[in-house]
C-alpha cells in the first residue's frame, strides 16, 4: 500500500511538468520528411514570416504576448473568449453589446486554415507554388494568403518544415494501404457518376463549391457562416493540391489526419469514399472564364476631400496594417513597423499628414506615395491596380495592396484617383 502511494505521487508530479502544452507531440513510426528542403531553416522561416499571425502551426508561434497573433485574437472574439475593454467610460456598455460590436467589425479575417496536418496530404510542389503565388481557393473566405517575398528555396524549406513529423499513414491497415501507396488506383466504371450522386446526397455542396463541375451561387464572404463553411475550398483545385492516394483516407476520417479539421466525418463506407474521390479528382472540369478586369471608372467631377477618402478607403481598408506605432502600443502594423517578412516601410494612413509622409526605401530615403511611375500612374494607385491583377493570377514586380485582402472596389479606386487628381485636398 505504502509503496504504490509513493509511486503514484511521483508519476503525478512528473505528469504535472507537462503543463498546458498545446504543441503536437504525437508522432508515429509512419512519419515522413521532405528531403528537398531544409527543415530547420524552414521552421525558422515560419517564424520570420510570421505565419502565426494567421495560422495555427507547430513551429510558427508568435511569442510576443499575443499582439501579433491576429487570428487567435479574432477567433477569441468570435467565440466569446476575449476579454474586451469597454468602449465608453460612461455609460459602460455591457459585455454582450461589447462582444457584438467587435464581432460586427470582423468581416474578412474571421478564420484561417491551420497548418497542422494538411501539408502531408498535399502535393509538396503545389504547396511550394502556392506559397510563392497565392491565389484564392476558398471563395467564402474574404482574406487570402498574402503574397510574401519568398524565394523558391524559402518556400521549399517551409514546406519541408510543415511536413516534417506529421503522420501520413492511413489509419486502416488492410489492402487499401497497399493500393494507396501507389498512385490513385483505377476506378470502376461509373465511379465518377456514382460519386456525383453521393456528393449531393451527403450534402457536400452545402460547404464546398466545385466550379466548372457543379453550378453554385456566387460565393460571398459572410460573417455569419460557420468556420467549416467559410474555409471549405473550391474542389476544382483538389486534383492539383492533393496526393491522390490520400484523398480516400481523408474522406473516411478527416480528423485523424488533421485534428482540428472543420470538415465533419461523414457516414461513408470504403466504396463510397472511393466514388467520391473519383468524382472530385476525375470529373471533367469546364473552363472557367477569367474574371473580367474591373472597369476603371472615370474621375469624379465633384470635389473629393480627404475626409471622404479616409472614411471610404483609407480608414476602412488600409489603416489596419498601416497605422502609427505611437498610438497603437508601439506597433504600427506590418505596413508601418514591418511584418510578414517585410521590413518597416513607415507607411501610415492614420491621418492626412501621415499619408504625405511617403514610404521608406531600402536606401533609407523616403519616397512619396504619389510619385508617378513611368506610365504616369501614382504609386498608390498602381499598387491598388496590381492587386486587381494578382486576383486574376497575374503577378508583377509590384506587390498588390491590400495585401491578402480583396482588391478595393472600382468605386473606392475612383475616389482615390479623383482625390489625387484634384490635388489631394484637405
Amino acid at each position, binding site marked *: 500500500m505504502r509503496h504504490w502511494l509513493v509511486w503514484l505521487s511521483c508519476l503525478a508530479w512528473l*505528469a504535472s511538468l507537462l503543463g*498546458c502544452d498545446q504543441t503536437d507531440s504525437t508522432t508515429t513510426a509512419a512519419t515522413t520528411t521532405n528531403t528537398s528542403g531544409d527543415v530547420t531553416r524552414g521552421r525558422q522561416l515560419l517564424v520570420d514570416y510570421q505565419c502565426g499571425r494567421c495560422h495555427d502551426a507547430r513551429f510558427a508561434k508568435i511569442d510576443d504576448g499575443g499582439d501579433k497573433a491576429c487570428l487567435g485574437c479574432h477567433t477569441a472574439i468570435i467565440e466569446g473568449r476575449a476579454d474586451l*475593454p469597454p468602449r465608453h467610460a460612461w455609460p459602460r456598455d455591457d459585455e454582450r453589446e461589447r462582444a457584438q460590436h467587435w464581432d460586427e467589425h470582423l468581416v474578412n479575417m474571421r478564420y484561417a486554415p491551420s497548418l497542422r496536418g494538411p501539408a502531408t496530404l498535399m502535393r509538396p510542389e503545389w504547396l511550394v507554388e502556392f506559397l510563392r503565388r497565392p491565389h484564392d481557393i476558398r471563395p467564402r473566405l474574404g482574406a487570402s494568403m498574402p503574397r510574401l517575398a519568398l524565394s523558391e528555396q524559402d518556400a521549399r524549406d517551409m514546406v519541408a518544415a510543415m511536413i516534417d513529423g506529421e503522420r501520413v499513414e492511413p489509419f486502416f491497415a488492410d489492402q487499401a494501404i497497399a493500393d494507396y501507396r501507389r498512385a490513385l488506383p483505377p476506378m470502376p466504371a461509373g465511379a465518377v457518376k456514382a460519386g456525383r450522386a453521393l456528393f449531393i446526397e451527403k450534402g457536400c455542396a452545402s460547404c464546398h463549391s466545385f466550379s466548372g463541375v457543379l453550378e453554385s451561387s456566387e460565393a460571398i464572404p459572410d460573417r455569419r457562416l460557420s468556420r467549416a463553411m467559410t474555409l471549405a475550398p473550391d474542389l476544382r483545385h483538389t486534383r492539383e493540391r492533393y496526393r491522390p492516394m490520400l484523398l480516400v483516407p481523408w474522406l473516411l476520417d478527416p480528423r485523424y489526419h488533421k485534428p482540428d479539421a472543420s470538415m465533419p466525418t461523414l457516414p461513408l463506407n470504403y466504396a463510397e469514399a472511393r466514388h467520391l474521390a473519383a468524382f472530385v479528382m476525375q470529373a471533367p472540369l469546364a473552363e472557367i472564364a477569367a474574371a473580367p478586369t474591373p472597369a476603371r471608372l472615370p*474621375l469624379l467631377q465633384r470635389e473629393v476631400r480627404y475626409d471622404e477618402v479616409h472614411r471610404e478607403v483609407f480608414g476602412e481598408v488600409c489603416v489596419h496594417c498601416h497605422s502609427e506605432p505611437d498610438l497603437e502600443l508601439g506597433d504600427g502594423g506590418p505596413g508601418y513597423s514591418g511584418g510578414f517578412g517585410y521590413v518597416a516601410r513607415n507607411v501610415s494612413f492614420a491621418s492626412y499628414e501621415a499619408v504625405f509622409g511617403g514610404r*521608406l526605401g531600402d536606401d533609407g530615403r523616403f519616397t512619396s506615395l504619389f510619385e508617378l511611375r513611368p*506610365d504616369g*500612374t501614382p504609386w498608390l494607385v498602381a499598387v491598388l491596380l496590381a492587386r486587381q491583377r494578382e486576383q486574376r493570377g497575374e503577378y508583377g514586380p509590384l506587390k498588390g495592396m491590400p495585401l491578402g485582402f480583396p482588391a478595393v472596389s472600382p468605386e473606392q479606386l475612383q475616389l482615390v484617383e479623383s482625390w489625387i487628381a484634384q490635388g489631394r485636398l484637405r
Partner: protein
Amino acid sequence: MGRRLRVWMAIALLAVSGASLLLLPTQNARACGFSLPAPNARALYLAMAERALDDDDALLATRSLGFVTLGSSAAAGDDPLIELRRTTIASKLAVRAATNHQLAATSASTGRHAGAVTPPPTPQELKAATKALRAVAQTRQRSPRSLTDLAEALALDPAGHAEAKTILEDLARRDLITSAFGWAALARLRAAQGDVVATRAALSRCAQMTRTADVCQAKTGAEPVPHTPPPGQLGRPAAS
C-alpha cells in the same frame, strides 16, 4: 520513517502536483483566452491634439495636450513613444503660436489674418522647441513629417532660414512636404528671395492642404490663394 508519515508525504506530494497543473504557465495562450488592451487614453488625447493642431485650433490642441499628462499615474517617460509625440505636439504649438503672431503683425494693415489666440512663446521657448524638433527628427530617421516640422520652426529665425529652405525645397521636389504649414513656410522663404512664381506655387499647394484661410500667407502681399483649384484643371494620369 513511520508509516503514517510516509502516507502524509504521499498525500502532500499529490496535492502539490495537482496545484502545479493549475499554476504552471501555458505554452499556448490561444487555448487559454485573450485579453485585449484597453484603449490608450493618452494616445486618444494626443490624436485629438494633433487634429486640432492641423486645423490651426491652438486652444483645443493645448487643452487636449493637457489631458495627456493629467491623471497619469506613471512618470512622463514611462512610454517613450507617447512622450515623443507629446513633445512634438507641444513644440509645434509653440512654433505655430509664434508664426501666427508674426503673420498677424504682418497682416495687421490688410486684415488678412484673424490674429493669434495664444500668447507668443518667448525666444528661449522657441529655441527649446526648435531643439526638441531637431531631436525628434533624428529619432524619427529624418522622416518627411519630422523634417517638415523642424523646417517650419527654423523658418521663424533668420539664422535658420537657409537650413529651412534647403530642407523644404528638397521635400518639395520629392512631394514630401506633409503639412500646409510647411508649404506656407516655404512660400515665405521664397518670397523673401523675391521669387514670386515659386511663392505662388507654394501657396497654392498650401491652400489645397488646409481648411483654414489664415495659414497660407506670405509677405509679398500676394492676393489670397483660393482653397480649391479652379474648375477645369482636373487631370488624369496617363492610362496604365
